[in-house]
């Protein structure tokens, strides 16, 4: 049925064969690792630039402004100019800070999101590693990011940073539960944590349609909890300008600040990519039952466009949240998680397990 969709593993297989004919197996592996690393680095940088631009445009749209419009056509080069400005800024060193941990913190944050991106399936056959534990691996490595935030806040030796980091830590650790539980619901439906299997199970319909109302509830909980986990508005308490200046990265400048900033946008991309893969069918085209002609036309749209289209839609929704909802207070934030989302999620998980046991899904 999906033979019409181009399989990227053909391309990667050709590259692999070509490399193997020139060099020894060991060097092939090393070269491939370097190539993949460079591709991801480039992707990371470009996506970061694009997302910052998109955020400013979406913000402007919500506030009835035009947004950046001076540098380049429609202001597209604005973020490039901002990047150059950030890179040329002085790196401020603070006295009486723990230099080693202070410098280490941005790297931990960025490495955590970089590790996770390895398992994301971008298109059919376009995935760096297809682990059996797939989604569990992503949850595991992204949970390391909070350590960088905590370290950065503590090592700066500043009250604002410390309080910001504590808030961020409490927030991330609590909302991780809801994220994990809502993802678990789809794992119950598919009976597998391997991302390629999860996508393959959505060939005849995405889980958000196939899984009835519980899947929709899980999706909504995931969106709320994931937005809180990446410290974005309306849950951006760690960076409360009015009371904490910039929170945990108050004392960072130049490229180190840029790394925290980039990691935040990459985490937003990751959250959207996971939501896409689990709830919206990943790179699977949109199909309606037996409308064969319609389904065939949908298949002609490349899978990579389907993936990025869905991802950017979810990113747009997350940005929409940020610019339209008022912020929560810290006690309201924790109450929302522990008193509402978590019990709801637990009940939802039990209902889904019951549905799967009775076979009441499509």
């Amino acid at each position, binding site marked *: 049925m999906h033979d019409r969709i181009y399989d990227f593993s053909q391309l990667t297989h050709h590259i692999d064969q070509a490399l193997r004919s020139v060099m020894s197996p060991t060097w092939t592996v090393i070269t491939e690792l370097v190539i993949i690393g460079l591709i991801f680095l480039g992707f990371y940088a470009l996506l970061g630039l694009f997302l910052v631009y998109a955020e400013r445009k979406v913000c402007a749209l919500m506030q009835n402004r035009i947004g950046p419009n001076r540098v380049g056509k429609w202001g597209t080069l604005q973020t490039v100019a901002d990047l150059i400005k950030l890179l040329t800024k002085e790196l401020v060193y603070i006295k009486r800070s723990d230099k080693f941990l202070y410098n280490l913190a941005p790297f931990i944050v960025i490495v955590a999101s970089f590790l996770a991106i390895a398992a994301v399936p971008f298109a059919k056959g376009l995935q760096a590693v297809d*682990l059996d*534990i797939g989604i569990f691996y992503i949850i595991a490595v992204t949970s*390391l990011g909070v*350590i960088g935030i*905590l*370290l950065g806040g*503590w090592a700066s*030796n500043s009250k604002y940073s410390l309080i910001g980091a504590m808030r961020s*830590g409490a927030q991330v650790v609590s909302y*991780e539960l809801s994220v994990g539980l809502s993802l678990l619901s789809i794992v119950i439906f598919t009976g597998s944590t391997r991302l390629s299997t999860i996508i393959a199970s959505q060939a005849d319909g995405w889980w958000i349609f196939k899984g009835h109302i519980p899947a929709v509830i899980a999706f909504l909980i995931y969106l709320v909890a994931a937005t809180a986990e990446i410290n974005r508005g309306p849950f951006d308490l760690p960076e409360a300008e009015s009371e904490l200046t910039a929170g945990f990265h108050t004392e960072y400048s130049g490229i180190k600040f840029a790394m925290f900033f980039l990691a935040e946008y990459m985490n937003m991309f990751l959250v959207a990519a996971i939501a896409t893969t689990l709830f919206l069918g990943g790179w699977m085209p949109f199909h309606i039952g037996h409308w064969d002609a319609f389904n065939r036309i949908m298949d002609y749209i490349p899978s990579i466009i389907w993936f990025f289209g869905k991802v950017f839609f979810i990113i747009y929704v997350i940005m929409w949240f940020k610019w339209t909802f008022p912020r929560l207070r810290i006690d309201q934030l924790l109450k929302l998680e522990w008193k509402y989302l978590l019990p709801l999620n637990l009940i939802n998980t039990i209902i889904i397990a019951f549905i799967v046991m009775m076979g009441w899904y499509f």
Partner: protein
Amino acid sequence: MSLSAIIFYILAATIIIFSILTVTSRRILRAAIYLLFVLVATAGIYFMLNYQFMAAIQLTLYSGGIVVLIIFSIMLTSEVGDKFERPALWKLLAGVSTFIIGTGLTLWVLLSHVFKVSDQQAIDVNMRSIGNSLLSLHKGGFVLPFEVISILLLAVMVAAIIIAKKEEDNTKSDEI
């Protein structure tokens, strides 16, 4: 030397070096971070063994859970400049001698034991088989220990909530 051997030696060296740094560092938060490196490198070794489930458990539970808790408690109690005092001589001597005896004993056991190479087929340890055997009632199933541990954890959580709970009298906080 093959690539996997090189990676193994890098991971092993990381584990050894950072383990030593963890116990010798006089700054408590740095010690916690060195411990984090040890745990992450151990997860790397699990990945090399193709035991991915264990590696992910190592990352979520130990690195993402326990180290975060340790860092949290350190953040609440100590400041950037704080350093431990140097240990007393007799403590140092006791520690070093325990280390030497322990290492010697472990090495002696490891080196004198002949490891037999098994000719059996490697079992594919995927999440499905782990989940099935955890909840299996039949031979080789672990449903009893699994449930006993669940009850223990539940009791621990209830106890923690009771200890952390405020007294009834001063609950009139700023509820909105």
